[in-house]
């Protein structure tokens, strides 16, 4: 068995060859290549489609190395560390890995360790480490913050990062990169191995996962060319490794730093997926997000499949689709529901039933995007907009884990813009063009947590730690000033008023090294490790008899919802959750108490719009598709006619132009534009435009946004407004800052940063024990005080950056304003346009400008007065 790279199965020890043969398999080329990289001690990034034996390829070098090493006199330390983004995946891989270990009779212990692992096993793992430990980034951060981490990891030879594309571009990725840098210090011979199924730009991931030396040249992506098919792809500028055989002896012979140090290994491309777009009775609805019109056809497709995964974008859509399918489930097919709000046991049950092949379909959200191999799924259905090409490839990959057979997928657009989007996504997938996350700069609140973790583990030298931190990809350009500021923050809180010197959390010793001040502070840090901040969750419980306030406790827990999700409901209202209709009985502390509803026609809570924004890349393709009239032939008749009428009555514009329409409608004046930049960026744009229109005396009354368009309505007409000035990029200056400072999004972002950085604890806002009652001490109070007294504080800077990227998408808005500057095509119309219909149909969920919170109180007061004057 040989491939283009000339690797033969002889690379494998006889025992391994026999095992492959015994299973009737031949080792795949990329598996052998990974073994070769392992033997030379080189870091590697493996990109291979699902079903390509990717995980085994990642572990093979370690299995061989451990199996071949001579017996030792003393107990050995950890050899290989495997990091998965999901707890469930770590456990699943443990099972899959132990199969070959047992079958070959290898003397290797591989164990998982997650937040769910029992305490006895965790303690044993600490005293007597397994050869291979499978865990999560959060557990790794905890292990790194142990006293004695240096000893624990000194024998570590390899770290494997699975599903790396889901980790790198986030705060979790920042923390993991820092922990990798730490591990490399503790274990200089450690190799880094990344595994990924879908990657649009491997260089971004290589840069993230590589160790960056102090003298590493600045990264250049210019020398990369797309690799074709299988085989190794090394950037032409990087020398071929010469340290064959004995990497320990000739350290430095390999390229040790920067993205060039990572060898890129590609698996064979999988079979092309077959993607269809469902056209329900030849019609596409004008608006809506639920695809309710197509449920009968979706059901029919499920009936003709073995097992279907039905992906939706929100929990609300999941509940809705599940209800709709069961209404027409005349055959009583086993159709289940899986989303992040359901109780963990319930999700595990669904997964187990799935694994046993007892289900025919599962309606799910992104909870099933990743990981666990379920074998027999033969169809993936995407209900409503796919939002991004990469996410779709990942989801489609869930169908059919056999490499040589194509995955089948069906897109079900819920409205006309989504039809365009589905078509664009389908073409992008066919061309294997993916959208990716841009590289990010490491967050300073995460760095603060890491610095504290280092001090908790062992005393550190400031300069050495600075070099170590800068060897992590996201922090490779970290300025010394920022690092100093972070260390000062960790030590004293970083306040201009230096009153906390005596309360320092870390202190500099006689030896010049920094260490944690006392054990309590160390312990407190360990309880607060991790870069995931989840919104406060309420448990949904079945109400015990006696009412919510008497009995106080609810009964069985059926799941969790984010705080605020049920705010629109009053007791007695009905809603759908976990596939059933419930009556809200009441909300007490952290419990939502419900009872089964007799009425099967629920008043639905609005569970917010789509969690994901339309990807930049897909948005561009949608704009291209619309502009290119020769392309319209691929679209269904009614959608094509819709575009034709739009062309007649209004305009179809170029892909880099912005279409803006103004027209009167129902005694109001409307401004509608179609930037296709996603709901977040549009909402930010609308907030800023209404401020400007207010100043111009136009009297804006409200706005509504979706992923494609934005509409503002006002008292006065807007066709004479200088539109270029209105959309000038300077709106991202003072207007943005003054709006942002006041917005609740800054407070939300601040809370996240305060938790991650260790300013406040996870259980905060917590009880200050006052006869056992909950006195809520909100981080908003801290935010207000800090903003007034030290507006340049590190955490306010972090919060602003987070709000600008995650919550309001300023970068994307900035790019858009830049792109369309001088390219606004204005259509002044007498009445609404075909394009504007979908967005106008969404009005009713609009938000009005002004201080909505104050309005709530004013209304409450007015109610009281009205009651008195009746």
């Amino acid at each position, binding site marked *: 068995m040989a491939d283009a790279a000339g690797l033969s199965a002889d690379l494998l020890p006889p025992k391994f060859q026999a095992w492959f043969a015994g299973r009737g398999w031949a080792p795949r080329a990329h598996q052998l290549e990974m073994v070769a990289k392992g033997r030379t001690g080189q870091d590697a990034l493996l990109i291979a489609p699902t079903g390509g034996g990717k995980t085994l390829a990642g572990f093979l070098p370690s299995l061989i190395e451990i199996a071949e090493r001579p017996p030792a006199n003393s107990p050995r330390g950890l050899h290989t560390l495997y990091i998965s983004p999901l707890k469930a995946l770590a456990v699943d891989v443990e099972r899959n890995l132990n199969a070959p270990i047992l079958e070959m009779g290898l003397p290797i212990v591989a164990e998982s360790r997650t937040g769910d692992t029992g305490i006895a096993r965790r303690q044993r793992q600490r005293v007597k480490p397994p050869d291979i430990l499978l865990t999560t980034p959060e557990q790794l951060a905890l292990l790194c913050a142990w006293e004695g981490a240096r000893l624990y990891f000194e024998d570590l030879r390899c770290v494997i990062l699975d599903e790396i594309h889901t980790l790198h571009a986030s705060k979790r990725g920042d923390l993991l990169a820092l922990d990798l840098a730490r591990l490399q210090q503790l274990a200089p011979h450690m190799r880094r191995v990344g595994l990924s199924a879908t990657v649009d730009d491997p260089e971004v991931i290589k840069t993230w996962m590589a160790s960056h030396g102090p003298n590493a040249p600045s990264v250049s992506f210019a020398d990369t060319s797309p690799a074709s098919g299988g085989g190794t792809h090394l950037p032409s500028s990087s020398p071929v490794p010469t340290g064959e055989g004995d990497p320990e002896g000739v350290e430095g012979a390999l390229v040790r730093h920067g993205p060039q140090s990572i060898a890129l290994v590609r698996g064979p491309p999988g079979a092309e997926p077959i993607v269809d777009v469902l056209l329900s009775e030849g019609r596409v609805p004008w608006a809506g997000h639920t695809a309710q019109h197509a449920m009968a056809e979706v059901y029919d497709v499920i009936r003709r499949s073995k097992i279907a995964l039905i992906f939706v974008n929100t929990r609300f859509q999941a509940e809705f689709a599940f209800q709709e399918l069961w209404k027409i489930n005349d055959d009583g097919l086993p159709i289940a529901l899986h989303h992040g709000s359901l109780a963990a046991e319930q999700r595990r049950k669904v997964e187990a039933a799935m694994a046993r092949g007892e289900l025919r379909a599962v309606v799910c959200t992104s909870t099933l995007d990743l990981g666990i191999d379920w074998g027999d799924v033969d169809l993936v259905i995407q209900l409503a907009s796919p939002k991004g090409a990469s996410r779709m490839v990942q989801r489609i990959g869930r169908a059919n884990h056999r490499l040589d057979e194509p995955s089948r997928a069906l897109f079900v657009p819920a409205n006309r813009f989504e039809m365009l989007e589905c078509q664009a996504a389908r073409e992008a997938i066919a061309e294997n063009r993916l959208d990716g996350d841009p590289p990010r700069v490491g967050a300073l609140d995460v760095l603060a947590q890491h610095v504290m973790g280092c001090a908790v583990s062992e005393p550190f030298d400031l300069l050495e730690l600075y070099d170590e931190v800068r060897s992590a990809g996201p922090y490779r350009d970290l300025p010394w000033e920022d690092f100093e500021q972070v260390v000062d923050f960790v030590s004293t*809180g970083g306040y201009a008023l230096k009153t906390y010197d005596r309360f320092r959390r870390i202190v500099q010793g006689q030896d010049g090294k920094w260490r944690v001040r006392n054990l309590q502070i160390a312990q407190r840090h360990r309880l607060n490790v991790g870069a995931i901040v989840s919104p406060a969750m309420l448990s949904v419980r079945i109400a015990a008899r006696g009412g919510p306030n008497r009995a106080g406790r609810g009964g069985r827990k059926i799941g969790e919802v984010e705080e605020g999700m049920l705010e629109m409901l009053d007791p007695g209202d009905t809603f759908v959750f976990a596939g059933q209709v419930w009556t809200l009985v009441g909300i*007490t502390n952290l419990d939502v108490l419900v009872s089964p509803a007799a009425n099967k026609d629920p008043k639905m809570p609005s569970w917010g719009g789509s969690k994901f924004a339309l990807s930049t890349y897909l948005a561009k393709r949608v704009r291209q598709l619309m502009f290119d009239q020769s392309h319209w032939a691929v679209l269904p008749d009614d959608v094509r006619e819709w575009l034709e009428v739009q062309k007649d009555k209004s305009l179809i514009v170029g892909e880099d132009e912005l279409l803006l329409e103004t027209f009167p409608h129902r005694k109001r004046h409307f401004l509608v534009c179609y930037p296709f930049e996603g709901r977040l960026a549009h909402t930010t744009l609308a907030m800023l435009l209404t401020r400007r229109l207010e100043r111009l005396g136009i009297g804006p009354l409200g706005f509504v946004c979706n992923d494609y368009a934005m509409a503002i309505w006002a008292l006065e007409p807007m066709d004479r407004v200088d539109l270029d000035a209105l959309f000038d990029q300077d709106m991202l200056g003072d207007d943005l800052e003054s709006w942002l400072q006041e917005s609740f999004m800054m407070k939300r972002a601040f809370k996240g940063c305060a938790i991650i950085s260790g300013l406040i604890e996870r259980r905060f806002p917590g009880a200050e024990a006052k006869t056992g009652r909950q006195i809520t001490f909100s981080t908003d109070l801290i935010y207000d005080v*800090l903003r007034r007294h030290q507006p340049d504080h590190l955490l306010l800077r972090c919060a602003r950056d987070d709000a600008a990227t995650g919550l309001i998408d300023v970068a994307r808005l900035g790019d858009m304003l830049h792109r369309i500057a001088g390219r606004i095509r204005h259509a002044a119309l007498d009445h609404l346009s075909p394009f504007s219909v979908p967005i106008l149909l969404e009005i009713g969920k609009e938000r009005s400008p002004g201080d909505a919170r104050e309005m*709530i*109180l004013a209304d409450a*007061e007015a109610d009281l007065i009205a009651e008195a004057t009746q």
Partner: protein
Amino acid sequence: MNDVRVTEAPIPPPLGEGDRAQHGGGGFSFEASPCGGLSLRVRNTAVVFRPSGALWLAASRTLVVADLHLEKGSAYASRGQLLPPYDTAETLRRLEAEVAALSPAAVVLLGDTFHDRRSEDRLAPDHAARLAGLADGRRLIWVVGNHDADGPRCLPGETADEIALEGLDFRHEPQPGQRPGEVAGHLHPAARVVAARGSVRRRCFVTDGERVILPAFGAYAGGLNIRDRAFAGLFVRSPLAGALGPARVRAVGWRQLADD
């Protein structure tokens, strides 16, 4: 007692005519005060709920604030949680603004003025001086609370367990049962108002017209929902909440309030 008419500070939120009228919502009689506060009677004494969270007794020109919790930030810091050390400065700034606006003849600190017994030691010298300055030319009365049971050691002013003024009794902790004429703090009342557009949670005054519980005045003082059991049995009828907004105190009836 000084019988001088209220000279409200010129904080001028424009009020519509309707706002000036007397209202009787929920059986309560209240009136928007020109300062943005609410004017009403507790027992038979005229009081103003100020948007700052202070209580103003015009007849005796007495300013009452509860639960300042000074040096709460440094109390947390001493245990390793380095909250911004600006809470005392912020609380004093707000209190001084009220004093400047109203020129009170007396300032009553209604207990838990300090967050703990060591707070006075941790007080920065200039903050101590500003606190002492409050006693210049007026009575400064420290009603003690559970967090500061001994009263101040070095700062000027009178220390009392409770005081009587204008027919009202001022103490830190509300006495159980119905206590007509009592003015207290301690519970840090907060109101949550829910509407279709979302919800707000604000510190608030709470009164049934017989007694009143003041919101906490301190920058870092948290709030306890007034639907909590701690408030049960204190009022003769469903009380009225005076929720604090940026420049207004809003009267909110019991029916509009929600649990946290």
